[in-house]
């Protein structure tokens, strides 16, 4: 009995070993024979879509931890096409939405699907920096244009490529340079900074610190907190005992932002120390969450819901009428992107894809956009207005941001020479300016 069992086991093993060899050999042999790949093309392989339909692939996080942002983005996008119809010049704009699940792996797979299965003419989104960087390099290989919605600096700096146009946001450090200038102009000599500890926070802090120190201030203390921190009370205490004239705080717009505001309120920091925030602690989602403790809180951003810029006001009113809530900057970015796309297609005689699309958008007159007066620089980022704002309670009880100071024509390079600036490393914990 034992002999038979051994014998059949040996045979089985031998057969299996043979199978491995076969597979390996075949694989090696086949590595010489490429299939008729469809990956490299610009998506127009085989069953091309009708030349009168312009297909947009929309990548948003509809599930996962930033699902709320995904909803905002989708609403902003939809609003534009509802107001203006989906006909842009000769083309009917069709949108295909895919969920990135707030994950870079899924985002990449969905981007692939959009290109090879849906044959999209452009990809709009995603919003998360890690997803964006991964998707961006794939799209560059596939030759498909990407209208980016994320703030990652390098997308239009060190990793810049002619197929990526940042239409849905400003670069991370770009949004905080004016804050540094403002802080100095207010008379503050020293500042302590608290920023979320990954690229977004590094860029925000880098922007503020550079501009502040250039103007003559001193950045005395730099605190970094992990993006998934559940309890911000430690950092609030640190800011309190720092002894600086003011604090600059860059949160990521998630629970960290609401936690910070509430801890700061609980510990009396909001009253005892001047604080300037980045976009996110006073974004609509956070304001709706924390409520009245946010009244009076100052921040620096390119968007203020209570602004008196006509085009922005119109957008805010329209969004509120349709959805019942004041739009966040994510919704605004998508609306603006839709607007740019529609305008570029309106006068086009043939379908614009790839770099042709990017160039057409860059050539548009955007002096009256939802952002205000913007134009694109040669690195495919916008140069435009920014504001320092504070939170106010409207007559109907809702909170929004109104403008204190405006800064025009803010560029992602601030006052630096682009070529010189790019020689420096990206902003990080160890490098926040000089």
């Amino acid at each position: 009995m034992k002999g038979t069992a051994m014998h059949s086991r040996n045979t089985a093993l031998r057969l299996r070993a043979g199978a491995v060899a076969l597979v390996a050999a075949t694989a090696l042999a086949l590595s010489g024979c490429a299939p008729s790949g469809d990956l490299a093309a610009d998506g127009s392989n085989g069953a091309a879509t009708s030349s009168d339909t312009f297909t947009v692939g929309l990548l948003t996080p509809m599930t996962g931890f930033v699902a709320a942002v995904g909803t905002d983005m989708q609403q902003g996008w939809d609003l534009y096409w509802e107001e203006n119809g989906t006909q842009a010049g000769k083309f009917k704009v069709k949108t295909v939405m895919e969920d990135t699940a707030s994950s870079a792996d899924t985002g990449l797979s969905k981007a692939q699907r959009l290109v090879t299965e849906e044959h999209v003419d452009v990809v709009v989104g995603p919003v998360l920096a890690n997803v964006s960087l991964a998707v961006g390099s794939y799209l560059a290989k596939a030759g498909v244009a990407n209208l980016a919605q994320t703030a990652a600096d390098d997308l239009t700096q060190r990793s810049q490529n002619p197929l990526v146009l940042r239409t849905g946001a400003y670069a991370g450090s770009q949004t905080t340079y004016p804050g540094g200038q403002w802080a100095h102009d207010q008379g503050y000599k020293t500042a302590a900074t608290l920023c979320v500890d990954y690229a977004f926070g590094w860029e925000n802090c880098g922007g503020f610190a550079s501009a502040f120190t250039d103007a003559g201030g001193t950045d005395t203390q730099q605190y970094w907190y992990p993006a998934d921190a559940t309890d911000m009370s430690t950092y609030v205490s640190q800011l309190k005992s720092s002894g600086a004239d003011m604090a600059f705080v860059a949160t990521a717009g998630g629970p960290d932002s609401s936690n910070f505001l509430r801890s700061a309120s609980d510990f009396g920091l909001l009253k005892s120390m001047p604080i300037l925030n980045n976009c996110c602690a006073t974004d609509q989602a956070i304001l709706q969450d924390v409520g009245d403790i946010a009244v009076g809180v100052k921040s620096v951003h390119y968007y203020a819901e209570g602004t008196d810029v006509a085009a922005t006001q119109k957008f805010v009113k329209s969004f509120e009428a349709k959805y019942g809530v004041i739009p966040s900057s994510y919704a605004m970015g998508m609306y603006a992107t839709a607007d740019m796309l529609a305008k570029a297609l309106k006068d086009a005689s043939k379908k614009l894809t790839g770099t042709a699309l990017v160039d057409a958008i860059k050539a548009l007159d955007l002096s009256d956009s939802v952002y205000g007066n913007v134009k694109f620089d040669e690195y495919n980022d916008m140069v435009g207005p920014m504001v320092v704002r504070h939170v106010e309670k409207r007559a109907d009880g809702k909170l929004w941001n109104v403008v204190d100071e405006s800064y025009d024509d803010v560029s992602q390079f601030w006052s630096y020479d682009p070529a010189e600036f790019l020689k420096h490393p990206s902003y990080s914990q160890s490098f926040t300016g000089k």
Partner: protein
Amino acid sequence: MDPIFVLQQILNGLSFGALLFLVASGFTLTFGLMQIANLAHGAFYVLGAYVAVVTVTATHNFWIGALAGTAVAAGTGLLTERALLRRVRGREMPEVLVTVGVLIVIADLVLAVFGGHPRSVSSGNGAPSGAIVIGEFVYPQYRLAIIVLTIVIAVALFVLQKHSRVGAIIRAGVDNREMASAMGINIDKVFTAVFLFGAALAGFAGAIGSGLLSLTPGSGTDILLFALVVVIIGGLGSIKGAAVGAVLIGLIDAFAKAWLPDFSYFTIFAPMALVLVLRPNGLFGRAA
């Protein structure tokens, strides 16, 4: 070293630790009494928290919100036990796996129903709010209240487990089902009650936590990790262990964030690893 800062950190650590204890105690109780590692505990926490937030927003009363959160969590626990766990009773791995499945389902359900925006309970609404101010020292009353409340609950749980008749019945049921049944105790009812109680504790912890930290659908797994570390250090089944573990982790977390921000996960991992290597059953646990 600023003494006020240190004192604030200690209190931060204790208040976070208090929340951890509330979460961990429900978990360790369910395990100690029923030998079930309920990984859906995190889901009950987050469910209770969201229900609490929504209720408080509607009623402007924190305690009603807390009650609602606790009740819904308990109800979900009841459903889970009756409909699902009962079918795999006694088989340790399937029991745990079922709870993982429940965790996945509830996490997605919470996202679907409540959306992904961060939520929290605004201060006031009947809960202690504002801060204690003693010279330069400022500390939120809510956090102090949590510490006090949790100490009371901890003592109550400890007494319940060790000394009461209910505790004795439950221990008997776990040690020897047949005997307990033969003595007229309805074991099924007892087990359901214990599971329900654990879920209720999780829901209550969620309601409390919603006033402390902002809530997202992912908060369940976040807090679950901390609870697991606490329970591993303290020993499965031990309330005393959960208390010691919670205080330890809370304090470590508070100070690590301030002094070693890059390594704050290491600093939680280190005591857990140490305990696992030196005393695998935890500080106060008994061999399973």
